[in-house]
């Protein structure tokens, strides 16, 4: 079973790296980019066979390590 975790900075947190990317895109001539925020994708390959159990475990992994919930939020996709 595969899980894909997206970790992003919370909306209220300043993202200067996103801003730098925004400026670089503008410098390359891409107009109309109003905002850029960047995050992480973490792919996990699990031996779980039950989707709900897998989601619960990955949520635990996010809470305990993969995301710093002070400044980051996450979402999880489970793919059978």
């Amino acid at each position: 079973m595969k899980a894909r975790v997206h970790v992003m900075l919370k909306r209220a947190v300043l993202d200067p790296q996103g801003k730098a990317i925004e400026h670089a895109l503008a410098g390359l001539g891409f107009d109309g980019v109003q905002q850029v925020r960047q995050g992480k994708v973490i792919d996990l390959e699990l031996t779980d066979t039950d989707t709900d159990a897998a989601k619960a475990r990955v949520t635990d992994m996010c809470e305990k390590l993969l995301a710093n919930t002070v400044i980051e939020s996450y979402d999880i996709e489970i793919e059978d």
Partner: protein
Amino acid sequence: MKAAVIVFPGSNCDRDMQVALEAATGKPVPMVWHGDTELPSGLDLIALPGGFSYGDYLRCGAMSARAKIMPAVVEAANKGVAVLGVCNGFQVLTEAGLLPGALMRNAALKFVCRNVDLKVEDNASPFTSGYKAGQVINIPVAHHDGNYVADDTTLDQLEGDGLVAFRYVDNPNGSARNIAGIYSPNKRVLGMMPHPERMADPMLGGLDGKPMFDALVEAL
């Protein structure tokens, strides 16, 4: 004072910290490996040094904060053992939940490596009793992710409880409220981005960091 320095894979300021602590205590200061589960007995101070532990992978200090030695460090802190986290060590302390907030990428995105002026907010802690309240000291910083962030409630609480230890005179990284270092509620855990251990020997161009180590020896 009996002190020890925790070493994570990629820590690189552990020796400087050991040298500064040994100069102040006159005793050997052991290095403690991150994979151990127990600390030496009778410690008065635990130092979490600077560096790039775990390559800053995932987040700075994130994996160090989950290292096998950390439950013992947290337990010791809860029992009143003093903890000094410098730079990467400060990041580990926030990731371990011993201090609030988080350290993020410097606002201007550049690695900052220079001496900065810090205002010592007060001298009412075992770390700062060797300074005068409001004294400005000059200490090196060297970091890419020193931008202290926390929500307004947390920041107001830190200010209200007098837990801001040091403030940048000229903020090099965008830290909220110019915060360079903070205490735990009992002021026995200090996390700071600047490196006092790099300003504790006349050979290094200044002695502004030395009073911290001397004060700790006297207090602990």
